[in-house]
């Protein structure tokens, strides 16, 4: 009996199982990464890094959870952590109420201004996909992850809460506010398109 070979077989089996999982869900994972980052180079880096970390901690993976969901948990952490490392991005929580003395339903949270009336921000014609992707990229990172997991990946609130390690109430709030912002952005873009089509913009 060769112990080194025996352990080598176990490691290879683990790698083979992981290889099957990578083959099965790399497209979905890449899709999520692309929607999070908005470009192929970053999407590839994010997906690779997520798979690498998943492999490092593969012995901790609980088989009761779908592998995709576990991978998204890792991916959202990598994505948010990497974003926070970059000094040019200053993260401001839109979940936390502002300290204005309100409580309960009277709490005031930070709102993002409506740029509908700002012609300087209007640009020339773009495809619907580009419009939607830009709208996604304009969202705060936690909102973006929630919306992508819910509307693109079709995860339930419970699964999103588990993936993002937050409460159901937080998921509900992030989705509500995220979609509201997305709708604003899309409406702005559609208005721009309309004005552009009528030759009112140069």
């Amino acid at each position, binding site marked *: 009996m060769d112990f080194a070979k025996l352990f080598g077989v*176990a490691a290879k089996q*683990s790698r083979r199982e992981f290889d099957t999982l990578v083959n099965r869900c*790399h497209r979905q994972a890449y899709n999520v990464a692309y929607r999070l980052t908005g470009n*192929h180079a970053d999407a590839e880096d994010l997906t690779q890094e997520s798979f*690498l970390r998943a492999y490092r901690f593969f012995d901790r993976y609980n088989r009761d959870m779908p592998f995709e969901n576990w991978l998204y948990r890792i991916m959202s952490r990598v994505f948010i952590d990497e974003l926070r490392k970059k000094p040019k991005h200053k993260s401001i929580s839109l979940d936390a109420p502002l300290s204005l003395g309100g409580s309960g339903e009277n709490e005031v949270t930070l709102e993002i201004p409506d740029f509908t009336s700002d012609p300087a921000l209007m640009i020339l014609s773009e495809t619907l996909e580009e419009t939607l992707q830009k709208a996604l990229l304009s969202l705060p990172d936690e909102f973006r992850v929630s919306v992508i997991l819910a509307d693109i990946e079709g995860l339930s609130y419970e699964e999103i809460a588990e993936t993002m390690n937050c409460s159901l109430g937080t998921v509900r709030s992030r989705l509500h506010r995220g979609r509201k912002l997305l*709708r604003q952005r899309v409406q702005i873009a559609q208005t721009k398109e309309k004005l552009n089509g009528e030759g009112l913009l140069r």
Partner: protein
Amino acid sequence: MNCRKVSHSISAYADGELPGMEHRAVHEHLKMCESCRDDYEGILETKRLFGAMPMPSPRSEFVQIVMQRIREEEVISPRHVGFWRMLEERFRLHPTMPQGAIVAASLAVFGVLLMGQKLNRPELTLLSSADEALEAAPATMVFSEQSATSFSPMRMLLSQKQYTLSAPHPPAFHWETSRNNLSGSFLQQVSLGRAN
């Protein structure tokens, strides 16, 4: 339910994620309120648009690249890739160690552990009566009445007389029989060890 509350619940309503009572309340409100209905339609449209976004494809060699990176990382940093890989690497450090010696050492350790378990946690055998137990005892054993020395916590439940059959030369079996006051049944406890 007023418009403000409905506005906060409408996204979860569109996802079918509201509890029954709240879901019905929002449903009833939407029948009456045109403004909230518009909001609801807007949420559905947003969900539909983003749900229908095309799926970008990674380059065809993407899986190979990922698996290659995993293999490279294993070579550079084996501690990151799990218990089995770590053991594999450890054993590779001693390629000259005779394999027979490893097997023998493993069996010896296993045997010692097994014996230790036997000594510290004697097996309990439940027989129908003390007589049956005594009949089952080896004929060479000498019967003597004395206090038993057993490590078993089961002894705490046993009381009154304890009979020990012990062989003349240690190490030997000793055999205890006693009445279990709690259940009224007889328990015989066999343990490996030196008789007193």
